């Protein structure tokens, strides 16, 4: 008689359905959070790939060359001051390197060829004159913390470059090679009908 009081009815269909829907919703939320991670991995394939890394190495070597004279806006103190968001009058947190900063003509020609062959993204302003080249070669401080904040706040660079900067570490500790600058390069790969952007960085040791 006592056994008859046990609840042995089981679940009704509606109860089962509600639980199923609840579980499916949880799985869907998990999937939606997990799936973008795969997209993120695919995006990162273009960050610091081997071609970009070697190309950036040569850009760094060109910047470090004795015949390259950096203009005042690339001065390390100016760049550091430019990262101060509270005072916009102090200039930019970065400067763009271009081949016209090189003193010798042969090196200048090689620099233009380097930009062309490594497919560094380049705004030629619609002219055939290579001296108008504005390659996407950003020169900033070795430590990227302030540059990242600056870009986050002010924008002014491509979305892909912003994603790449977020991916990079801050480089808070001083360089073992005593480098004070950092170069960040954006590539626009179009060889063999390709059409995608890639990014790479290197430290730069240049006397002020």
């Amino acid at each position, binding site marked *: 008689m006592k*056994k*008859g009081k046990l609840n*042995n*009815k*089981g679940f009704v*269909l509606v109860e089962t359905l509600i639980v*199923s829907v609840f579980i499916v919703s949880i799985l869907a939320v998990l999937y939606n959070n997990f799936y973008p991670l795969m997209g993120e991995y695919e995006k990162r394939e273009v960050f610091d790939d*081997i*071609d970009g890394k*070697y*190309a950036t*190495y*040569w850009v760094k*070597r060109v910047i470090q060359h004795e015949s390259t004279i950096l203009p005042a806006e690339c001065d390390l103190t100016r760049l550091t001051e430019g990262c101060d968001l509270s005072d916009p009058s102090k200039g930019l947190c970065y400067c763009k390197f271009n081949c016209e900063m090189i003193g010798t003509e*042969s090196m200048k*020609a*090689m620099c*233009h*060829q*380097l930009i062309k*062959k*490594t497919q560094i993204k380049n705004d030629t302003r619609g002219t055939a004159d290579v001296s108008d080249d504005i390659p996407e070669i950003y020169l900033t401080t070795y430590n990227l913390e302030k540059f990242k904040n600056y870009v986050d706040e002010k924008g002014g660079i491509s979305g892909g470059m912003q994603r790449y900067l977020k991916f990079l570490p801050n480089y808070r500790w001083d360089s073992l090679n005593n480098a004070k600058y950092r170069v960040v390069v954006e590539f626009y790969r179009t*060889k*063999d*009908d*390709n059409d*995608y952007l890639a990014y790479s960085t290197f430290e730069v040791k240049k006397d002020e």
Partner: protein
Amino acid sequence: MSKIKKLNNKGMTAVEVLVCFVLVVIISVSMYTTVSSYQNKQQIEGFKEKIFTYKNLLTKEINDDLIKDGLVSAKILNFNRNNVTGDADASIEMVMRNGQKKCLIVKSNKAYDYFWDPYDADMVSKLPPNEDKNDEFLISYGVCGEETEYPIPDLGESYNANLGGPCGANGCVIKDLRINNVDMTIENSLLNIYIGFYHPDLGTRYGIDIVCPVNF
């Protein structure tokens, strides 16, 4: 007797069983498409990994020499590229600061590709069926005369439509990973070597791209 009667032994109704069955089928089908798409993705990632390993190995090998030993001069020894067949035969000699000469040789013999139509007279005149051959690609690099062979990764193969031609009854072998484009230039004291690959699933995205200033 009364004890047995009080047990729940009603079982499920036909509608309940049917609803459960339909739910299980829906879930299974959706799972199958998801899993099979991931299997395909995994296979493609496997191809990518093999190409990356090969590309990184060769790029690093060449760039290590160019950067550590220093490139003094470079000379393109031969550069033949057939725009119709896509065949290429190119070699370059690079002289290092220590006097050592390093050579890079690229050979690309391509079977007539997927678009070759034996019934198209114009195409047949440009690509005579008896001159067809199996795909053969080879990159060699090292001290001139003692180059090491770097065969490109084998990612599978198929046959073209040249049945009973010089390659046999099945047609000529078309590798899934092929050398698509070869370019070598020395301009404005800058050496550029480009070897582009083609894969049906990956397109022309991956290739070897060496850039180095001469006598920098």
